């Protein structure tokens, strides 16, 4: 059984296809880096896997089951974070809100629930951090808490939507290392979307590159190539390797850097 399988999946908004006829299979226990320019459909793909967007066509299997919301086996860190900006709520309460958060009743955790939150915070080394108000934590610390929250319910597939955004290279490295460590320790599948390939290079098993409605999945050396990327971008792309880094260029502009600036 694969962690995720898409067969000829098409997702469109108001008749415009964001993903068209995408077929791919992601094995279990892999760390997948998901890349692609703004609007390529990274978030859309994740929300489709979560069962929040219904595809116009095709078949999706998530750990062998059809995609549907409320699947405890899938963990998620959303890209848009409204992080309770109005309140000085401590990290613990923020993380714990996701513990059985869909059930009716008072938000008072059982002993097992509290242990689960402790476990998740411990996994990411955020036990101390969780005592502080969320709005007084740094971007990197916040990612730790979000990761702990996503681990509640012990998911076997983790979808992390751009956890590196607005972090400096040092903290980017910290987050990638932490995710890798958690992924290995728990033996789960991680799909990690990002705007830049280089921070992920040492950690990922495969890359999933999206562009113009299409997807390419495979080892970095198979996907990050002139023909594949030229097809996904619909223009002439050069791939330049320097030591341990890879630069994806359109003419003399580095495409990933370019997008990053747009986003900031």
């Amino acid at each position, binding site marked *: 059984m694969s962690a995720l399988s898409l067969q000829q999946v098409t997702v469109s908004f108001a008749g415009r296809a964001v993903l068209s006829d995408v077929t791919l299979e992601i094995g279990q226990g892999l760390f997948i880096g998901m890349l692609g320019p703004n609007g390529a459909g990274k978030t859309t793909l994740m*929300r489709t896997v979560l069962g929040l967007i219904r595809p116009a066509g095709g078949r999706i299997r998530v750990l062998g089951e059809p995609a549907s919301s409320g699947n405890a086996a899938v963990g998620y860190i*959303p890209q848009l974070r409204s992080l309770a900006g109005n309140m000085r*709520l401590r990290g613990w309460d923020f993380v714990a809100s996701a513990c059985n*958060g*869909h059930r*009716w009743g008072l938000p008072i955790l059982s002993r097992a629930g509290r242990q689960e939150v402790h476990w998740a915070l411990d996994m990411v080394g955020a036990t101390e951090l969780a005592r502080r108000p969320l709005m007084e934590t740094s971007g990197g610390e916040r990612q730790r808490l979000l990761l702990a929250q996503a681990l509640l319910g012990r998911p076997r597939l983790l979808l992390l939507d751009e956890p590196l955004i607005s972090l400096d290279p040092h903290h980017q490295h910290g987050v990638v290392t932490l995710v890798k460590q958690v992924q290995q320790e728990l033996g789960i599948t991680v799909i990690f979307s990002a705007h830049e390939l280089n921070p992920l290079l040492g950690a990922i098993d495969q890359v999933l590159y999206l562009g113009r409605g299409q997807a390419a999945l495979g080892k970095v050396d198979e996907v990050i190539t002139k023909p594949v990327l030229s097809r996904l971008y619909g223009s002439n792309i050069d791939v330049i390797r320097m030591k341990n880094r890879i630069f994806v260029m359109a003419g003399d502009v580095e495409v990933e850097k370019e997008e990053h600036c747009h986003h900031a």
Partner: protein
Amino acid sequence: MLEFDFMQNAFIAGGLVSVLAGVVGFFLVMRGQTFAGHALSHVGFAGATGAALLGLSPMWGLIWVTLLGGVSMGALGERLQGSDIVIGTILSLALGLGMLFLHFFTAYATQATALLFGNVLGVNTDTLWTLAWLGLACLLLLAIMARPLVFASLQPELAEAKGVSLRQVSMLFLAIVALTTAECIQIVGVLLVFTLMVGPAATAQKLTSHLGTGVLLAALLALAEAWLGITLAFYTDWPTSFWITALSSSAYLAVTVLHMLRNRRPVASAA
């Protein structure tokens, strides 16, 4: 002062409503929907004056119209939430309509002041029972939905992925807010609902970062402000609503200053 029936009623009504307002207000602040709460009270004003014009009970007009307003706000969902312009427009339209209804129903002029600024000293036993039952219903509903409410407020996208219906949560919660608003209007009036719903909650969340403690503190602060306000009104003969607003805003101001001082100290010592 408790030898007077009207004072007993005022204390009971003030106690019931303020505890409810404190608790509901905490979640309202957490969701960043305080302006929606403010607008609902104005919608209630149109409801109460409209009902009076039709010869119906103003209180029930107030309750039903705020409830309708709350549920539709929740149903419209994201398109409306956070849209200050839409909410503000509804608010002024409601106030304008209320004015029009009053214009046709001039005998109601003294009642208008009570609606706008509250009249806790005029609460009779019948009203008291209505307040008690409605308040109980609100607290019960809130207890049932509190867990998904907190989840959906703090992490909406994740909550949705885990099977929480954001629209359902929003509609139910705004229904509770609407009923709470209708109750608050009996005490502090349409224009000052903010003072009971938002003031204590905003103060509480500056004092603690614990969720449970915050809710409890908001309820206690609201209760203290309401009872102290009624007491001060009795001895000074100034309006109760004035005293409650004065206490509510002083408390908020005090903790804000305290907070600023506390946050400045480490910076000063580091420099």
